[in-house]
């Protein structure tokens, strides 16, 4: 498996607060990789650095053998590296179908492309993906009228509509009814297997991440604490200490 995303010695500080220090991670094509760590350990900062939300202080981020640490958010997204937000973000005043159609990939879109009509198959694809996440019957409702959990699912469907190569998910199960979480894990695995989307997932729910991820990175205090297979991470004394607050 070839390396898809390679973060080398990445650092980011906000004033005196060092959010990420010398972090190196790697995601290979086709993998599901987990990123865990206590609150404030720098997971979301790392995500933001990868997707170009803010410049990094040092290190390098390569996606598909291309240095992306100096690119801006939309350019990186057009390369096929997409993220979802911890605080779910959808287009509130548009219907679910419009949300989906607005999420078509913008890769290589020229001036004429802006005024194109919707290609045949766009509505089919949108309905298919809404069905996939279980929102088909709500497809003509406004995004803002959905519950928080449904909005998370819609955001996930929108991400799939964009046909990313690598999808960064920031706490996909937060705020989702526990009985639905199994269904969501199943959806994530199917997106990975059937659609060939590589996943990097931030997650606090240990049961979810242990079921989902093939490899896990653990951050604490802005530094990479441990990396390995789920079982190894689960039994790593340093990880347990970080979560339980031992010093």
């Amino acid at each position: 498996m070839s390396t898809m995303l390679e973060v080398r010695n990445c650092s980011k500080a906000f004033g005196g607060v060092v959010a990420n220090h010398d972090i190196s991670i790697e995601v290979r094509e086709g993998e599901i990789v987990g990123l865990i760590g206590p609150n404030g350990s720098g997971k979301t900062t790392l995500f933001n650095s990868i997707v170009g939300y803010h410049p990094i202080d040092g290190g390098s981020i390569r996606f598909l053998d291309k240095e992306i640490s100096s690119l801006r958010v939309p350019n990186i997204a057009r390369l096929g590296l997409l993220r979802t937000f911890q605080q779910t973000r959808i287009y509130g005043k548009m219907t679910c179908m419009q949300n989906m159609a607005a999420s078509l990939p913008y890769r290589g879109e020229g001036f004429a492309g802006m005024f194109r009509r919707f290609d045949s198959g766009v509505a089919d694809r949108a309905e298919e993906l809404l069905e996939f996440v279980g929102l088909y019957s709500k497809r003509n409702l406004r995004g803002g009228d959905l519950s928080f959990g449904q909005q998370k699912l819609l955001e996930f469907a929108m991400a799939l509509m964009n046909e990313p190569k690598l999808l960064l998910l920031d706490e996909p199960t937060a705020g989702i009814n526990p009985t639905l979480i199994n269904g969501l894990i199943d959806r994530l695995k199917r997106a990975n297997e059937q659609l060939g989307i590589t996943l990097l997932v931030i997650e606090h729910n240990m049961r979810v991440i242990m079921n989902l991820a093939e490899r896990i990175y653990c951050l604490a205090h802005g530094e990479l604490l441990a990396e390995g297979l789920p079982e190894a991470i689960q039994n790593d004394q340093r990880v347990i200490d970080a979560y339980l607050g031992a010093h």
Partner: protein
Amino acid sequence: MSQTARIQKPRFNAQTWIILAGIAIIGSVAPFVEPTLVGQMTVFWIMVLLSYTWDTMGGQMGYNSFGNVVFFGIGMYVTAAIQVGLYTDLGTYTAAKGGIKLTLTLGQYFTGLAIGLVAAGLAGFLAALLIGSGILGLRGHYFAIGSLALGIFVAELASGWELIGAGSGLVPPLYPGVESARSLWLYFGCFALAGITFLVLQWVYSRRFGLALNAIRDDEDKAEAMGLHTTRYKTIAWAISGIFLGVCGGLAGNFFQFIDPRDTAFSGATYGVWMVLMVVLGGKGTFWGPLIGALLFHVFKELFWSYLLGLQYIALGLLVVVIVVFFPEGIVGWFRERFPHWFGERVDPPPEATAADPVREPAE
């Protein structure tokens, strides 16, 4: 159903075309039925133009612009300057401060006007492109303030520029024919332009472009994160409204027959604010909202000016307060909140039985 119809309710269905045909017939007959009101009706179509072009930015894209009046004013000046400049020296003409009367043949007049209007559209387009790429990096309130300052800045610039008459203004050439013919073709010019503008804008909104603008309105950060070329979309949206505002300004300048830099061309306190109020009254980002808003606003305004002269601005201010308090989403928006199914928002049963789907969430 076609793919597009499944994504969003079609903008033009049979019912829409019937209403539009009705408006077209009423609009074509009205000046002959009530010839004394032709001037009023011309102003009405100018208002409709201002309202729909403002809605592109303010309604569809959620960028409240107080600077659209700039393109309107640029159109006025460009058209008049070309109308004059084609047949005499513009500098001498303006230096005489109305002392020189330009006598043209009908052919010369309309040639000048046609070239002037095309140039006005182009000037509006280019100005919006240029200014847009400069200030469309600002968002929300910052953009609103920036665009407001822009209007004031351009007004000051125009009132200091001798070539276009500076503070004394610019007078477009007099129409060589009879006055009643002049008011009729100006009416039909504004009416036709309003129709074309409406159709072009709705066509643009029905494409990918429209959804991209709505996405920027709802969450610009999300749109960026999805890979949308936000700056490009924003600038082009402004440039499209700039074209129609420019041409509209060209016609309006000839209608008013006098262009004052602060009171007609770059009048932020009148047209600049009215275009915002009309759209807010009718419903931002809706199909009929800007038209309904323009109609109601124009009628109220004329009534205030006719029957409450001296108190007209107080009455207008009260109207604004009533609009904002009782119809924060505008009239069409008010209906949309109460009758969402009229706008195609509804829950549909699934196509086949998939009730066992674990991800399908129960109604909350």
